[in-house]
């Protein structure tokens, strides 16, 4: 006698086995790891402070020679942008072998800035000469032409920056008459980027900047580790706000280099007990797993044990 097995049952069993097996493998326990806490540096700046900062930046550039160096660093992004544009342009020409309309299309699609149109009419003849593949683009070309006609009036004045890029590409190949105009447009665009508040901000920041402070990252890691060992004495009295600090030196392996040095002498028996409990915790919980990259920061620091506010 044959046992009939429903196919759906078989499928169900197979699927369950698969899923459960995968669960058993993938949900197996992992050792408790302490990922570094991501820290976001936040400066609280009032509106009037911000106004001063802005003002300071402008004056700073004019007066100080240092910012100039920083400007060079800023200039890099501008170059990159130009490079990208040049790269894109050749691609366009290759793929866009077809007639004038295609070339026009791509720029429109990639960069929806209206200004392009002004130049396009001039460029069209050049492209046609390069690679005459009319068949593909005709229908789209019509629609594009319509679009082109519409945009030109708006962009003429406003859209200067994007134009130079395209024009450059074109220039290398063809018209010389237009080059002058293009160059004129490029210069103002460069000035605008260098003049950006962002650039000047970065420069000022590096000039003033202190050493990198990653204490939020390794500090919280240390905190979580030492707190597991900290058996806080039971104060119970709300009026007591104990706070004890130690200066500690750690070796690279996270162990203590020497005995933690308590800050100050506890004034009350409870504070003494509080200090001792913290000291016990620091000793008991070593070695500490802290990011080696920040060793210079955590080799010497001061944990401050206190009550949660």
């Amino acid at each position, binding site marked *: 006698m044959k046992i009939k097995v429903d196919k759906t049952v078989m499928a169900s069993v197979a699927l369950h086995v698969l899923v459960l097996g995968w669960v058993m493998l993938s949900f197996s326990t992992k050792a408790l790891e302490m990922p570094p806490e991501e820290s976001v540096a936040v400066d609280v700046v009032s509106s009037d402070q911000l106004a001063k900062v802005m003002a300071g930046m402008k004056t700073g550039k004019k007066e100080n020679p240092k910012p100039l160096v920083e400007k060079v660093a800023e200039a890099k992004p501008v170059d990159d942008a130009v490079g990208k544009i040049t790269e894109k342009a050749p691609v366009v020409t290759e793929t866009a072998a077809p007639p004038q309309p295609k070339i026009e299309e791509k720029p429109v699609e990639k960069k929806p800035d209206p200004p392009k149109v002004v130049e396009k009419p001039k460029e069209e003849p050049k492209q046609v000469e390069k690679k005459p593949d009319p068949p593909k683009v005709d229908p789209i070309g019509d629609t594009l032409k319509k679009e082109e006609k519409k945009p030109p009036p708006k962009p003429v004045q406003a859209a200067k920056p994007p134009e130079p890029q395209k024009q450059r590409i074109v220039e290398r190949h063809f018209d010389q008459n237009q080059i002058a105009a293009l160059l004129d447009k490029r210069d103002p665009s460069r000035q605008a980027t260098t003049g950006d508040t962002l650039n000047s901000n970065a420069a000022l920041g590096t000039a003033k900047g202190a050493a990198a402070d990653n204490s939020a990252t390794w500090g919280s890691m240390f905190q979580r580790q030492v707190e597991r060992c900290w058996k806080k004495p039971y104060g119970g009295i709300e009026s007591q706000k104990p706070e004890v600090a130690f200066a500690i030196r750690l070796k690279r392996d996270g162990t203590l280099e020497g005995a933690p040095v308590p800050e100050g002498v506890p004034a009350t028996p409870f504070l003494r007990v509080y200090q001792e409990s913290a000291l016990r915790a620091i000793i008991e919980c070593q070695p500490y797993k802290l990011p080696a990259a920040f060793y210079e920061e955590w080799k010497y620091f001061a*944990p401050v044990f206190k009550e949660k506010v």
Partner: protein
Amino acid sequence: MPFRLNRRQIITGMAALGAVAGGRNAFAQAPKRIPIPEGEFVPLPIAIPNFVAGTPGDAEVGVGVAQVITNNLKRSGLFAPIDQAAHIERVTNIDVAPQFQSWKQINAQALVTGRMTRQGDGRLKAEFRLWDINTNQQLTGQQYFTSPEYWRRIAHIISDQIYERMTGEKGYFDSRVVFVDETGSKERRVKRLALMDQDGANVRYLTRGSDLVLTPRFSPSTQEITYMEFGQGDPRVYLFNVETGQREIVGNFPGMSFSPRFSPDGQRIIMSLQQGGNSNLFVMDLRSKSTTRLTDTPAIDTSPSYSPDGSRICFESDRGGKPQIYVMPATGGGAQRISFGEGSYSTPVWSPRGDYIAFTKQGGGAFAIGIMKTDGSGERILTSGFHNEGPTFSPNGRVVMFFRDPGGSGGPSLYTVDISGRNELRVPTPGFASDPAWSPLLS
């Protein structure tokens, strides 16, 4: 030409020097401060091996002392004694440092070692050392001499030493509790005054039980008890000396006198006297027997309790309609109501530490024991149920003892609870027990 500085130049020069010095300070490496705010309170793991016997006959007392200390610390809720079976090292000589590593291995943070030795003159010598396992240091060490029958007291005193050294607060183990022992059926309940150690050991009966006794209160400074007794006629307030067993009546007043309590110096007794339908507070000097009236209201003022400095009194009064807690100067005068919660408040008692007033709160069909700050703020209910009443503070103000009657055919028993509301524990008594009052520290 001589080199001269005018005043302005000197000042600017000094300022420049100061700036340089200040600048140097600012550049001196101050370690980065990392706040550690999250630590949780955890009972401290402590190892208490049996005390070493100085002579072969002292083994039993050595075990007993370790057990009493273990029990005390465990009941406090602040320590987690480690089971002796887990101990690795066997302490045989307390005069050398223990093997810290072996204690660290069982996660002990503190270790108590001790030795009991019978002396040639019959006295018992008790020595102990308290070790910090992580810093490998001795935190404290003491030795005591006593007659052998007082070994429990020695154990309590050592417990207090450990408690104080590890928590930063005074202990409370070397103290006693007076309470009303209740036996017999509910209809024919016999109530006797009884005295015991705070851990329930060494129960002694102070009265025979022929008369009903209520509200015993310990003197904060002497080994005396005041209580109320219903004999023939009106209830009277009595004074009882625990050491001598002497008993005397406090004053002779018309009408009922009740809810007596000592002043902090033990020289006066404050109580209520009933006159007609209302009762007022009076204070009586025990030496001169002179009586002073403190309140004069048409309401019921009762359950007075002094602040530990003796400057103020808290009491219960229904002058506002329902019983509430009031505070006034010890000399009488304007009373200020401090309880404003739902329900009624009664039996206020001031903490020996001065920071809290404990009370019984009735409302919503339940009796609760709570504490509040002396200005009435920070009210905290420690326990609540069918019937909880009669709070009394431990000598260090950290623990509140009260009695709980579960209702039904049973009777009341004593409980302790931390002033944080944690660690509620029943206190072992031979029979039913009510109306506890904690003594001051004996030593």
